[in-house]
């Protein structure tokens, strides 16, 4: 998701109009379906969510008294699971962001020229990005099976050990990180490939004339020029990581124990299994604030692939 590019381009004005011949209400007629849907789907619900988050709101109860910031206070001071889920969210997102951007960058550097079969490789790297996540999560659960899964079969044959992927509290999040990276690295690669097009060719050639080897060219010329792209990949991956839900629901259901109960999953459970919607709404605003901050960073500093 590329909020930056979208908002930056949105700031450009379209051409000024010379002579207007339509009644003043006509433009509003054109935007009204979209605005109406926005009001129903976003504007009204977000206000309602704010209202719920300051009430002791349990579905099915006749009275939902106002409690002020109690839900928020409870989260940060009394709810150990919430704090732990916050830590796990950062652990998962951070791990995913690092592996995703690193693998994406390496792939992009390798793919940044013509070679036989480039088209097919690009297709292979991109397949996981588009294929439906739920069926693939079911398949990954098979592959990760400790006793019968393909991965452990191969590991056991080659190196003589097994990894308790999803069944061990220590391994569960790294396993999810590997899967998330599998899914998104093709996208990171495409963003980096676009970024590499903007690295000034003359700078690289100048470095070559000066006798810089491949590593020096990368470290002193290409990497600094890629900084805005890197930031873009980091921020968008963080947002993706923080909103990860379906895979966790399918593969671990927050377990083993609570090892993969990240914030999104905990919001779902609190609201729709424990039916404590006041607390759920308060948590969802905490998530909102993280996403908001990340978006602001992105808007201010990052540069994604241009849309024109």
């Amino acid at each position, binding site marked *: 998701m590329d909020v930056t590019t979208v*908002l930056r381009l949105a700031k450009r004005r379209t051409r000024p109009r010379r002579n207007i011949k339509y009644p003043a209400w006509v433009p509003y007629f054109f935007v009204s379906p*979209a605005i109406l849907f926005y009001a129903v789907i976003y504007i009204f*619900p977000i206000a309602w969510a704010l209202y719920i988050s300051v009430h002791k709101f349990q579905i099915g109860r006749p009275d939902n008294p106002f409690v002020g910031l109690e839900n928020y206070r409870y989260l940060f001071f009394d709810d150990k699971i919430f704090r732990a889920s916050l830590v796990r969210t950062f652990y998962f997102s951070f791990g995913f962001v690092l592996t995703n951007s690193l693998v994406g960058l390496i792939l992009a550097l390798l793919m940044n020229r013509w070679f036989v079969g480039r088209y097919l490789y690009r297709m292979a790297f*991109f397949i996981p990005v588009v294929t439906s996540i739920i069926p693939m999560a079911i398949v990954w659960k098979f592959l990760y099976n400790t006793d019968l899964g393909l991965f452990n079969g191969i590991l056991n044959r080659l190196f003589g050990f097994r990894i308790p992927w999803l069944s061990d509290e220590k391994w569960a999040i790294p396993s999810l990180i590997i899967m998330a990276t599998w*899914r998104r690295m093709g996208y990171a690669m495409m963003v980096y490939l676009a970024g590499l097009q903007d690295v000034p060719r003359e700078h690289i050639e100048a470095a*070559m004339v000066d006798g810089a080897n491949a590593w020096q060219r990368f470290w002193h010329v290409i990497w600094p020029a890629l900084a805005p792209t890197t930031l873009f990949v980091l921020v968008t991956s963080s947002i993706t990581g923080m909103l990860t839900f379906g895979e966790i629901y399918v593969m671990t259901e927050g377990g083993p124990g609570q090892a993969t109960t990240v914030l999104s999953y905990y919001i779902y459970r609190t609201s729709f299994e424990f039916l404590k919607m006041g607390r759920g709404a308060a948590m969802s605003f905490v998530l909102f604030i993280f996403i908001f901050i990340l978006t602001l960073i992105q808007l201010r500093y990052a540069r994604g692939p241009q849309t024109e």
Partner: protein
Amino acid sequence: MSTTLAKVAATPVVARAHRARSKVWRRIGMGVFYIALTAVAIFCITPMVWMLLGSFKYDSEILAYPPTFLPKYWLYQNYVRATTLIPMGRWFLNSVILAAITELSVLTTASLAGYAFAHLEFRLKRVLFLSILGTMMIPFFTIMIPLFLMVSRLKLLNTYLGMVLPGLVSAYGIFLMRQFMSTIPTELLEAARIDGSSEFRIWAEIIIPNSRPALGTLALFTFLGSWDSFTWPLVIVNQRPMKPIALGLVEFTGQLAFETKYGTLLAASSIAVVPVLIVFILAQEQIIESFHLSGLKG
């Protein structure tokens, strides 16, 4: 000869030095390069290939070690069971219906609003446009609870209308349309206005036919997003026949893994993935090149 010389002269010094390096090392380099890329590519397609091939295998063969690559016997019974043991056909149909409603709504609202934001002047234009784009940063989890309450009060739980609701409009879609429609020359619209065309007629007869590529891209990504939708149906649908395919599949997973019908589960998963795979293969170039516009999240 002269052309060769010209070529040599045109090549930078460094490149010539590079070429002079031992050919053997270059070959080894290329070998390592291909091995590395191939390894990653295999990693990328393994889950998909394992699923598709596994869906034709006996349960015992799926779990067998060492794993077989191609099925020993090509078993189509898994697919039969996937459509008879569970309402896979119905779930598939549900997903198709949901995608159709979503497409219709997203394409209509986006192309209407896109035209106004690209070519019409009105007072609230910038404010409205920026606030629409601003909603992109609201995580779905934040509006999920009120939307659930709203849908349940309107008695829309377990209905198509309830399921499509959050996806009926797309900020990316509006943005995409506005960007694309801005490139349509104003002179064309002015000429139509002088001929007495109404704005709506201009939209229908000039703007829409000229926006086909952008509409196509938007339709593609709307389909991919709609086909994958899971969290929202999970919250509002509990009747079996109303589930979209991803949600149905998850219900099925618990049941079938318990009965160890792995082949059937893989066949069902394949059925869920194949439409997306077909769309991807047909429109690969368009999808990869414009993916950053799509707003698809992980």
